[in-house]
């Protein structure tokens, strides 16, 4: 028996078991240590899984030994393997960053709860991604959501964080309920819950109104969860007020995972033919996505708080991903996946940088960040590199995604999309340019003069620069990401096994 056959199960169970362990240990340092060690294992497992499936194989791991439709199974292909790698790496770096950052943000006696919540959130996100069972998605979605609400609300003195968490809870619960309802309709139509099995059964049943309604509810639920344009309202507050490590973690993973579920359902379970040709999903999503990235980029320009600015930029970026995916071509999906991966790293790095700045400055208002390039050169320059990547400057990861996005749009004849994407980059230039200008050419403001502003601690800079290096490396040597994404897309479009 090969040693790595149980990696899929261990990937989920390790963080799941580490969470109660943290509660038992109830010690701030050791719970952090547990979390980090487990996270390293998770990174290794997920990388090993990715290496196993990179040749186009699919791993199916039956849980409880019951064969697929009867029991629950893990279904691992390139798409979710690569996402697991991304999630675990981002979690790892944010976790290292959190060690120093939570000192300013969370009461010491709650550290262990923080790490427990973190591990549960990680479990939830990985669980959503790895599973091959529709209902199981819902269960793990709730694990991740609940722990996210908690993590967001953990901020020490921020009462807005509580409200943000509550709003997220209401929106998230509506989304989750819709997904649950949608899965119910699919179950009514087919009698099965396994995704691959659903795909087989839906081929016969796809004209039925039950399936149409199930499809609609799942769509709406996932759209809420992934904060696409009209239903994004929970996101800016949540990102702004959550503890900075949490924001970094969520920005890189939460909405991406919803997007993954979206891909999984609409390409894999329903099949792109049904989702996009018959149900005209593309026709509905594309305008939303475009309005989303446009409007949100504009809104971002006018923000005075740097975290909020990045939050709106995140919504805009989600618009890009949806626009890419809505093309429903292999190139489009590949572009979407590339952007998911690249943006995850970039946004996490940016939020970590912002966290470092806020850690020293005690403020996240852009106006207070004058002359930061001299005060905190490493942090500020990391932020600038990340910002350039967001714009899509060559040699950064953002360029690769934009390149593929535009190529995919042109390929499928959506010239207008290509133009829109590029025009909205202009706005990215504006809001990033605004920040760069403050960093480099504005003088330190009066109310920041007294503060002892110096370079962020090394423990924060290491994860920051690691992520920046990753994103720059993927910008220079993009073929790793691109190759995997293209393989993932072709597997996804190729339908079920």
């Amino acid at each position, binding site marked *: 028996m090969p040693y790595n056959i149980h990696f899929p199960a261990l990937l989920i169970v390790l963080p799941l078991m580490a969470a109660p362990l943290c509660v*038992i240990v109830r010690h701030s340092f050791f719970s952090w240590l547990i979390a980090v060690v487990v996270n390293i294992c998770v990174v290794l497992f997920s990388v090993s899984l990715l290496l196993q499936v990179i040749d186009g194989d699919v791993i199916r791991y*039956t849980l409880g030994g019951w064969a697929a439709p009867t029991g629950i199974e893990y279904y691992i292909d390139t798409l979710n393997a690569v996402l697991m790698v991304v999630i675990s790496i981002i979690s790892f770096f944010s976790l290292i960053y959190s060690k120093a950052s939570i000192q300013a943000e969370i009461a010491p006696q709650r550290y262990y709860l923080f790490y427990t919540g973190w591990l549960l959130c990680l479990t939830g996100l990985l669980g959503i991604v790895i599973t091959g069972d529709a209902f199981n998605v819902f269960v793990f979605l709730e694990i991740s959501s609940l722990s996210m609400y908690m993590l967001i609300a953990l901020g020490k003195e921020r009462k807005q964080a509580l409200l943000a968490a509550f709003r997220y809870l209401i929106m998230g619960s509506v989304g989750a309920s819709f997904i649950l309802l949608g899965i119910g309709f699919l179950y009514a139509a087919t009698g099965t819950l396994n995704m691959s099995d659903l795909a087989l059964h839906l081929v016969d049943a796809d004209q039925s109104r039950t399936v149409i309604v199930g499809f609609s509810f799942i769509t709406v639920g996932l759209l809420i969860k992934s904060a696409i344009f009209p239903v994004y309202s929970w996101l800016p507050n949540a990102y702004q007020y959550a503890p900075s490590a949490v924001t970094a973690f969520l920005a890189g993973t939460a909405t991406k995972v919803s997007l993954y579920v979206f891909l999984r359902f609409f390409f894999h379970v329903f099949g792109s033919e049904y989702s996009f040709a018959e149900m005209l999903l593309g026709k509905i999503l594309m305008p939303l996505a475009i309005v989303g990235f446009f409007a949100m980029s504009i809104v971002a320009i006018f923000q005075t708080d740097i975290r909020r600015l990045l939050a709106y930029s995140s919504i805009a970026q989600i618009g890009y991903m949806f626009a890419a995916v809505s093309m429903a071509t292999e190139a489009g999906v590949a572009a979407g996946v590339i952007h998911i991966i690249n943006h995850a790293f970039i946004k996490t790095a940016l939020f970590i940088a912002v966290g470092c700045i806020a850690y020293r400055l005690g403020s996240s208002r852009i106006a207070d960040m004058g002359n930061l390039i001299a005060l905190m050169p490493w942090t500020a320059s990391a932020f600038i590199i990340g910002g350039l990547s967001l714009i899509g400057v060559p040699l950064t990861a953002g360029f690769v995604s934009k390149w593929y996005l535009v190529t995919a749009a042109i390929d499928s004849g959506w010239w207008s999309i290509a133009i829109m994407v590029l025009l909205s980059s202009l706005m990215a230039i504006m809001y990033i340019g605004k920040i760069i200008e403050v960093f480099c050419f504005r003088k330190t403001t009066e109310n920041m003069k007294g503060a002892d502003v110096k370079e962020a601690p090394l423990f924060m800079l290491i994860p920051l620069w690691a992520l920046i290096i990753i994103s720059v490396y993927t910008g220079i040597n993009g073929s790793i990401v691109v190759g995997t994404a293209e393989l993932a897309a072709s597997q996804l479009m190729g339908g079920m096994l």
Partner: protein
Amino acid sequence: MNKQLEQRHRVVQVITKFLTPMILLFAFYVQFHGDFGPGGGFQAGVIFASVFILHGLIFGEGRTRLVVTPNILRISMSLGLLLYAGTGVVSLLLGGNFLDYSVLASDAVSGQHWGIFVVELGVGITVAAVMISLFYCFSSNRFLDRIPFKIQEEE
């Protein structure tokens, strides 16, 4: 005043004391009879917790805390989850897939039986501990014990 209040609730207190073991018994019945009738770990956990909730309601949460301390809750809720996941890991170590109970005993059916039993127990422990701690969290945090509280006016 305190004395008076105590007198006023004597009936409920006595009934509660009388009910407590019966409810506990019922909880164990539901836990271990769940294979044969309705019920299972989750329901049993809630019933088990309801004993302490009832106790807390009648005798004051402070006193329930003396019986079941927050630390016990914290540890037992973790242990329940660990028990469940641990069963899975044990079955994994014994050569099955994760949560494949068939390998737990000599033959598959009794292995399943054992597995289900242990797993339900884990669920029961966690749920009971969680429910009690929810009750603790949501009750009487505003007023310290032993400090006379104002009875809220009826509007």
